[in-house]
């Protein structure tokens, strides 16, 4: 066994020598392999990065949560009542009550009241999304208060006029002073800033699922305050007209007891709401479902990429086979000599297989470096995330060696089948 390993090691060294003897040709031989392995690595890493990002952003929404949003139904007929009186749609307090009473799989239902308001500080004004939330809402979505304190149970019970804001709002308002304790005017009501959230790190589809307007700044106030101060009527100025609407509950966050119960619960919610609402003025967003969908899309994407990478690896393998056949013609004399000196057919096969494996491995290594370079460029210029895991590199090296060995089989057998006498006579 030791002697055999020694023999293999010897041939590996020989293969490396042969590789270095004609560098340009070796490089051209390995080129297909380099591109193949490079694309495999880049593809796997970008895929993993995307997956990781999606997982993180959906994790933000929470896998046990079901988000029910009120949506403005498609307008059936414009005219008589729509102009004069506020349109009434969306989730109602009754819906909430029913859900809480009938769904045993629901741990908690959190209402959210969302209104668009103008926010003033001195003479600066911004558009703000004012979210009335229960105290546990903020912890649920992983919002951490950088300075000051989050909304508390006491704020909720006393319907205090306090708010928690994003630090980006301060920049937009041009506030330089310590924001804690300062007073913002929302519509015509004064609110004291008690906490500042770290900068927005919600990704766009999280924001969309939570019905947070991309352009507006979020301001969190206690739910009870929101209900008492602004009520359910919202007025939006649009194209010179004011659109009034009455939405009792803008959003319900339904938390299932376990993640297995998410889908059954969402079906129950769906049937309750279908029975209670004539129009489709609600939507259900299930982060877990988003997760699974994106995993599915990701899987399809991965399969396509793997196919493409496989094709380039096969092409690389054919390149190696081609060069090995040429090499064997070139080295017929050497093969004859080795056979005369006692190499068995198996020895010859082994020698050429090891040489192709060396080519494959070296090509694979260069391909890995190439792939890492490509990833670096992609990350730098497209802003994608990539996750290079060590097993990707191991896998691509293994695959490249395997492809090389497979493509070496035919040339190696050809070499072994040469008649020693004829091979020796070859010039």
């Amino acid at each position, binding site marked *: 066994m030791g002697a055999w390993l020694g023999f293999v090691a010897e041939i590996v060294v020989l293969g490396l020598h042969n590789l270095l003897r004609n560098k340009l040709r070796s490089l051209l031989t390995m080129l297909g392999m380099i591109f193949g392995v490079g694309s495999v690595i880049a593809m796997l890493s970008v895929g993993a990065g995307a997956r990781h990002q999606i997982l993180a952003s959906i994790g933000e929404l929470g896998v046990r949560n079901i988000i029910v949003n009120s949506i403005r139904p498609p307008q059936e007929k414009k005219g008589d009542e729509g102009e004069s009186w506020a349109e009434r749609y969306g989730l109602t307090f009754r819906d909430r009550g029913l859900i809480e009473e009938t769904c045993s799989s629901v741990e908690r239902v959190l209402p959210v009241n969302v209104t668009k308001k103008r926010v003033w500080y001195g003479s600066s004004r911004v558009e703000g999304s004012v979210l009335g939330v229960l105290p546990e809402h903020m912890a649920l979505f992983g919002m951490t208060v950088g300075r000051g304190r989050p909304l508390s149970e006491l704020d909720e019970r006393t319907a205090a006029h306090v708010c928690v804001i994003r630090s980006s709002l301060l920049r937009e308002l041009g506030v330089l002073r310590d924001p804690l304790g300062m007073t913002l005017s929302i519509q015509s009501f004064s609110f004291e800033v008690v906490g500042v959230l770290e900068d927005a790190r919600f990704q766009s589809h999280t924001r969309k699922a939570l019905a947070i307007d991309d352009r507006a700044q979020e301001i969190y106030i206690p739910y009870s305050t929101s209900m008492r101060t602004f009520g359910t009527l919202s007025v939006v100025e649009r194209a010179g007209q004011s659109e009034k609407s009455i939405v009792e509950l803008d959003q319900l966050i339904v938390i299932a007891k376990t993640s297995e119960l998410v889908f059954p619960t969402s079906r129950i919610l769906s049937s309750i709401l279908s029975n209670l609402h004539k129009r489709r003025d609600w939507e259900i967003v299930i982060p877990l479902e988003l997760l699974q969908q994106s995993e599915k899309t990701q899987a399809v994407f991965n399969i396509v990429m793997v196919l493409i990478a496989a094709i380039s690896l096969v092409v690389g393998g054919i390149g190696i086979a081609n060069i090995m056949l040429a090499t064997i013609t070139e080295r017929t004399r*050497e093969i004859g*000599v*080795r056979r*005369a*000196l*006692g190499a068995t057919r198996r020895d010859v096969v082994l020698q050429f297989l090891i040489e192709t494996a060396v080519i494959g491995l070296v090509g694979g290594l260069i391909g890995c470096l190439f792939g890492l370079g490509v990833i670096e460029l992609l990350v730098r210029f497209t802003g994608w995330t990539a996750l290079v895991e060590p097993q990707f590199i191991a896998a691509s090296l293994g695959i490249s060696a395997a492809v090389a060995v497979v493509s070496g089989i035919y040339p190696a057998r050809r070499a072994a089948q040469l008649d*020693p006498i004829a091979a*020796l006579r070859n010039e």
Partner: protein
Amino acid sequence: MVERIVELEQVEKDYGQGAAALTVLKGVSLVIERGEFVAIVGASGSGKTTLMNILGCLDRPSRGAYRLDGHDVSKLNDYGLSRVRNQRIGFVFQSFNLIPQLTVVENVEVPLLYSRWPRRDRRRRCLELLEAVGLSHRLSHHPTQLSGGECQRVAVARALVNEPALLLADEPTGNLDSRNGEEVMRIFGELHSAGRTIVLVTHNPEIALALPRTVEMRDGLVVRERRAATGVAS
């Protein structure tokens, strides 16, 4: 210890099949004993190359028996023949047949590689042999950096490295000038004195006449044998 190194009995060799078959050897019987130094001569087409290939186990006789060093090798398969070549035969070729990408030492090591000698023993043995042929100063040179005479001395070292029962030389001086040719023949003479069994194929009558025994081939048959009175050449 077997005294008959080579024992050919009515060896025939055909090439091709059916009507197109060509019989190159037509019944050659030959016995070569341990320590003999035999020249095989003959015109081209006389069958001496084919005989050489069979003696060297590169080819099998179509009919007849061949016993090499006491073992019947006429029925061996490719694997068996490879092992026999590796263990019992040393080849010296006209065009040296060194492997260009290997150094001198590595070339000498090749047969040992195929008998799976451990690296250290291999190196030691090769160094001894290269010293014996006067090439200790050229160990890590490549064949292209050597003169023809030096190449052939490397080839002789390589042929001896596995302690073969039979040393086969095919026109070993054919590609050398007379001075280098004489040097190589001197080495063969020394090996013969040391008790090696050598078979040498040559066109050169001068070389053949200097050897203790000459076998002449014509049309696939041994037509004449000559033995010198004394057993030792030169």
